[in-house]
């Protein structure tokens, strides 16, 4: 696999985009999201940040069809590439690995149902395990793996179905800060080698400025879009502690601070 070929196939993959049209959502009487309009361009990572309880995870569940929006709709524009088995694929905060299946079993789980078996399945599993540096852990059970390894398995599983859009729900939040840093590098690496489209929900602004091409700031509940910050610096050139990224992060924090404070108070009232 030489790089030019990969980038060529990926240009084709980029046919599919997502558009959120006036999304609003209620849990019972409580309005959690209000009037969200957002484009998710192909080949870019869109980060969603906001104070706790602002409905960022709900928004992600709406995007992938795990929940129905009370109003508005999520539009898929263009066809998902034919190779894509599961166009909208999640990576969950708590990994969601089946503890009774080995690493390879957890990946084969999502292929079995789509009629991929035998040598094809074998090839896909080897490929995604190599890409996530897990080849030596094929037969391990989740209980034997560290948190970082578990999330790698979950990412490998997501890659196995060749998603058109990755929906990542705080994928690094359950990990300690060092593991998070390592995995962040791996994610950037994965994207630079083979750009993918992603919606990346996080409460960690540092993560957002490292991996986001654009960062959507939500207000506290009911979540509305406060601002969309674009960061033009290429992902692979971003480093931990870059002055311009720090600047962006500070800007985001300024946008969010009062909202976060209010959200915190709101919880205490409840």
């Amino acid at each position: 696999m030489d790089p030019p070929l990969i980038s060529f196939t990926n240009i084709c993959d980029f046919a599919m985009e997502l558009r959120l049209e006036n999304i609003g959502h209620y849990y019972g009487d409580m309005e959690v999201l209000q009037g969200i309009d957002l484009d998710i361009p192909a080949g870019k990572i869109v980060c969603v940040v906001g104070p706790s309880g602002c409905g960022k995870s709900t928004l992600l569940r709406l995007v992938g069809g795990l929940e129905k929006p009370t109003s508005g709709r999520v539009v898929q524009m263009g066809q998902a590439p034919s190779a894509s088995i599961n166009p909208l694929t999640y990576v969950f905060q708590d990994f969601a690995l089946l503890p009774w299946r080995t690493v390879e079993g957890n990946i084969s789980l999502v292929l079995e149902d789509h009629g991929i078996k035998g040598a094809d399945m074998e090839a896909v599993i080897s490929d995604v395990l190599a890409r996530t540096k897990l080849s030596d852990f094929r037969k391990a059970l989740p209980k034997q793996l560290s948190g970082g390894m578990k999330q790698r398995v979950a990412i490998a599983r997501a890659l196995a179905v060749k998603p058109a859009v990755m929906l990542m729900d705080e994928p690094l939040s359950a990990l300690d800060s060092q593991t998070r840093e390592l995995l962040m590098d791996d994610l950037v690496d994965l994207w630079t080698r083979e750009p993918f489209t992603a919606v990346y929900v996080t409460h960690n602004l540092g993560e957002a400025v490292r991996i986001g091409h654009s960062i959507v700031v939500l207000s506290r509940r009911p979540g509305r879009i406060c601002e969309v910050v674009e960061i033009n610096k290429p992902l692979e050139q971003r480093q931990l502690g870059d002055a311009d990224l720090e600047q962006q992060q500070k800007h985001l924090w300024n946008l969010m601070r009062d909202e976060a404070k209010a959200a915190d108070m709101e919880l205490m009232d409840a």
Partner: protein
Amino acid sequence: MLDSASKDDQRTVEFRGGGFAPQSKRWVGFVVFIVLISGIELGTRTGFITSLMLPRPSDVLATFVELWKSGLLWKHLIPSLSRLAVGAVIGASAGIGVGILIGLFSLARASLIPIVAAIFPIPKIALLPLFVIWFGIDEASKYALIAFGTFTPTVVAAYGAVDNVDRTLIRMGQSFSLSWFSIVTKIVLPGAMPGILSGLRVSFAIAIILLVAAEMLGAEYGIGAYILEAGSLYDLERLFVGVTILSILGVGVSAVIGLIENRLLKWRI
């Protein structure tokens, strides 16, 4: 200041953690049994315990050996084991099936939970005459009694186990567009397995109790018949042989489930 004080007055910080982590030590169980039985043996031999209060353990053993040599042991044990196996397997399978239905479908849940709650507290032995009328005096009524008694606790354990399956795993399955059938067989059932197996421990103990009850009410051979006969003659040695066999049966069933758990639930932490 601190230096001078700490030089004269030093002590090790006392350990106050630990405990609250019981571990099973195999040999302790055997030692307790041996001490208890040899105590009774000693008591009966010295006359501290009269033979009317408790039979001498060595006599019980002798009676057991006699039973074995005469071939009657197998004559009693085999029908009992087959009744237990047939009844418990029918009851447990039906229980697991219904429990899973309750765990998966709202309609099954709404309609069956009240029924299960209503039949759970009925002493199944009280229904034996009914089963005799329905299924005849032969084996079928015994199977039915054991199956019915095993069924209710299994249902409760099974639907509880399905309820406890991690919902995030099910959402994960849906997010990868797995079929409903795959989600049930690959996520719900394996996830419910620990709860179902621990429920079976209880169900099978109840099955043994009901086995004896069924055999006491009309069986020529079987551990229950053997115990009933010994009891009506106040033959304490034989009574204790029968009771001991039941205990061993219980320990055996529990050990088998333990083995299955070790095999199927290796993935647990």
